[in-house]
C-alpha cells in the first residue's frame, strides 16, 4: 500500500539532511510502528509524506497504491487516501468543528468524483462516530481544537480519521500528552478502524501505546534511517533496554 524507497530529505531553509535513505513498505491490513529517539526523523517522515512545506526531497520515492505521493498537493494526497493524525493539532478559532469536518469530507469526495454527503447523513454519521470516542455535541460545535485539552485534541484527530475513512493512516506521536485512560480511548478508536484494506503507520517514542495498538511490524529509526525491523518483541526490547543498545549494535 505505502511504499517508500530510498527517501532522502533536506530542510529547505538550512543546509541539513534529515532523512538519509528510508525504505519502508506498509501492506494493507497491517500496522507498522516506527520507534526511535528524538531527532531521528520520525515526524519529518510523516510531514514529508503528507506534504508539509519546508522540506526538499533530494532522492527516492513514496507511493500510495502506486500513486506518486510526492508529486501531489497535500489536499490531493488526502483525497488519495492518506491521513496524518497530527502530534500537535492546530487550533482554528471561528471555524466550527462540524463545518470543518463536512468541508473536508465533501472536498475529498468532490476530488474523487463522488457525490457530496447530505447534511442529514453527515450529522447522523458524525454523531454515531463521536459517541464511541466520547466526544459530546458541545465539542462538535466548538471551533476546531480551540480550548480542547490534549486528550480532546487527539480524540478529535481520530474522529476526523474515522469520518474520512482513509486507506493509509499515519499517527504521529498520538500518545504524547495523554494519560492512560485517554490513550486507551484513542487506541480503541484506532483499533475500530483496523481493517484488511487499511494500513497504519504508528510513530511513537514509547512502547506503551503499542500495548493498546498491537503492531504487526516494528521499525527502529535513528539518524534518518530505519536501522532495524522486527516483530512486536522489538518494541519490548526497546522498552527494557532503551535505544542505546540497538544504536551501538548497528553503529
Amino acid at each position, binding site marked *: 500500500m505505502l511504499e517508500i524507497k530510498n527517501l532522502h530529505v533536506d530542510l529547505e531553509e538550512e543546509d541539513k539532511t534529515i532523512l538519509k535513505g528510508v525504505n519502508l513498505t506498509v501492506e494493507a491490513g497491517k500496522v507498522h510502528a516506527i520507534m526511535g529517539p528524538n531527532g531521528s526523523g520520525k515526524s519529518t517522515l510523516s510531514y514529508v509524506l503528507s*506534504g508539509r512545506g519546508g522540506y526538499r526531497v533530494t532522492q527516492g520515492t513514496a507511493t500510495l497504491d502506486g500513486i506518486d505521493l510526492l508529486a501531489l498537493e*497535500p*489536499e490531493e*494526497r488526502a483525497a488519495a487516501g492518506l491521513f496524518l493524525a*497530527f502530534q500537535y493539532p492546530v487550533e*482554528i478559532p*471561528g471555524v466550527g468543528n462540524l463545518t470543518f469536518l463536512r468541508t*473536508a469530507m465533501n*472536498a475529498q469526495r468532490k476530488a474523487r468524483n463522488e457525490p457530496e454527503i447530505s447534511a442529514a447523513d453527515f450529522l447522523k454519521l458524525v454523531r454515531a462516530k463521536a459517541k464511541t470516542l466520547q466526544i459530546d455535541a458541545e465539542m462538535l460545535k466548538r471551533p476546531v481544537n480551540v480550548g480542547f485539552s490534549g486528550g480532546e485534541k487527539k480524540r478529535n484527530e481520530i474522529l476526523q480519521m474515522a469520518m*474520512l475513512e482513509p486507506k493509509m493512516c499515519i499517527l504521529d506521536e498520538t500518545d504524547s500528552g495523554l494519560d492512560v485512560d485517554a490513550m486507551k480511548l484513542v487506541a480503541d478508536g484506532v483499533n475500530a478502524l483496523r481493517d484488511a484494506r487499511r494500513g497504519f503507520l504508528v510513530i511513537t517514542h514509547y512502547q506503551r501505546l503499542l500495548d493498546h495498538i498491537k503492531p504487526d511490524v516494528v521499525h527502529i529509526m535513528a539518524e534518518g534511517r530505519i536501522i532495524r525491523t522486527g516483530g512486536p518483541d522489538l518494541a519490548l526490547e526497546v522498552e527494557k533496554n532503551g535505544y542505546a543498545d540497538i544504536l551501538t549494535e548497528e553503529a
Partner: protein
Amino acid sequence: MALAQARPPLIDARIAELRLPDGAAWSMAARAEALDRLRAMGLPDRRDEYWKFTRPDSLVQVDAPRTPVSDPAEGLDMFGDIDRLKIVFVDGIFDPVASDELALDGVQIERLAGAAQSHIHWVRDVYGTLEARGQSPVARPLAALNTALASDGLLLHVSRSPSKPVNLIYVHNSETSDAILHHVIRLDPGVELTVLEHGPAAARFNQVMEVEIAAGATFHHVRNQESGHQQRAATHLFARLAAGSRFKSFTMTANGVMTRNECAIELAGDEASAHVAGAALGDGNVHQDDTILITHDALRCESRQVFKKVLCNGATGVFQGKILVKPGAQKTDGYQISQALLLDEDSQFLAKPELEIYADDVICSHGSTSGAIDEDALYYLRARGIPRKLATDLLTLSFLAEAVAEIDDEGLRTEINARLEGWLARRRG
C-alpha cells in the same frame, strides 16, 4: 496661509451645486450653524493630520466622479428572511413605492425632506447637535457639510421597543449621483431598536447618523457596505449614551474605491457600554478607512473596538482608533484591536491606535497586527483534503470571526457570514 485662502472658494463651489429640501425650514438654524462650522474648519485636506492615511480629494471635489452602476437587485437581496421595516433610498432619493409604509409600533417616523414642523419638535434638539459635539477634539468637515446640506434622511423617535428592525436600503442607479443623507435617531429610556443598512447608495455617498440613547436603552446597528468597485462613501456615526445604555454597531465593508467611516461615541452616563466592530474586504484598487473615537466621560463604562481587514491585490486598509478617557471617568474598561490579514505582498494596512487617559483607575488595552495566513493552519486544513483556496477562505472567515461575533443576533450574524463567504468565494485565488 495660502491654504486658508484657497479653501473657501472650494466650499462655495461645492455648496452651489447642492439644494436644500422643501419644508426644511425647521432645520434652517441648525444648517446655518453647520455651514458656519464648515467654513471655519474648511474642507479636509491631505495635509490634515486626521487625513494622513486617506486622500480626501475625491470626497470633497465638486462633482462625484462618474461611477458605473452596480446591480441594484444584488443590493436589495439581503436580510430577506428577517421581518423588517424596509425603507428604500435610490441615489439618496426616497422611494415610496419600494419602501414599506413608514409606520412601526412604538416608533415615530418622519423624513427630513418635507417633515411637517409640528411633528418634529424633538428632532430640533438633536439634528446637528451630536455632529457639532463630534467636531471636537478633531474636525469632521464632511459631517458638518452633511448637516448643512443633507437632502433627506430618516427621523426616528423610539418610545417603545418596536417588534422588528428598521432596514435602510440604499440603491445606486445613476452614474453621477451624489447623495447626502442625514438620519437622526432618538431612543427613550429602556427601549431597544435595531437598525440595518445595506446597499451601494450612490456614486458618492455622504451619510451622517446621529443616535441619542437615553438611560437603559439599547441600540443595535448592522451595516453592509458591500458595493461595486467604483463607489465612494464618507459616513459618520455619532452617538451619545446615557447611564446604563448600550450601543452595538457592526459594519461590513466590501469593495468601494474609497470608503471613510468615522465614528464618534460619547459615553456620557455611568455604566454605559459601546461596541464598534468592522470586517472589511478589499481586493484591488480600494481604500477602506475606519476612524473611531470613543470618549469615556462617566464612571464604570465599557467600550470595545474590533476591526478586521482582509486585503489583497494592492488594497489599502486604514484604522485610526482612539480611546479617550476624560478626567474622573474612573473604572473605565476600554479595549481596542485592529488587525489586517494581508493575502499577498502588494497590500498595506496603516494603523494608528491611540489611548489618551486622564483618569488613574482604568483598564485600557489596545493592539494592532498585520500578517499573512498562518501556514501551519493552512497545512492542517489541506492535509484533511481541503484545497488551498477553500482553506484560505475558511481561515479568512476565522480571522474575521471576532468582529462578526460582535453582532448579538444569530440570524443577522449568519446573514453577514453568508455575505463574507460569498465575497471570498467570488475572489479569484
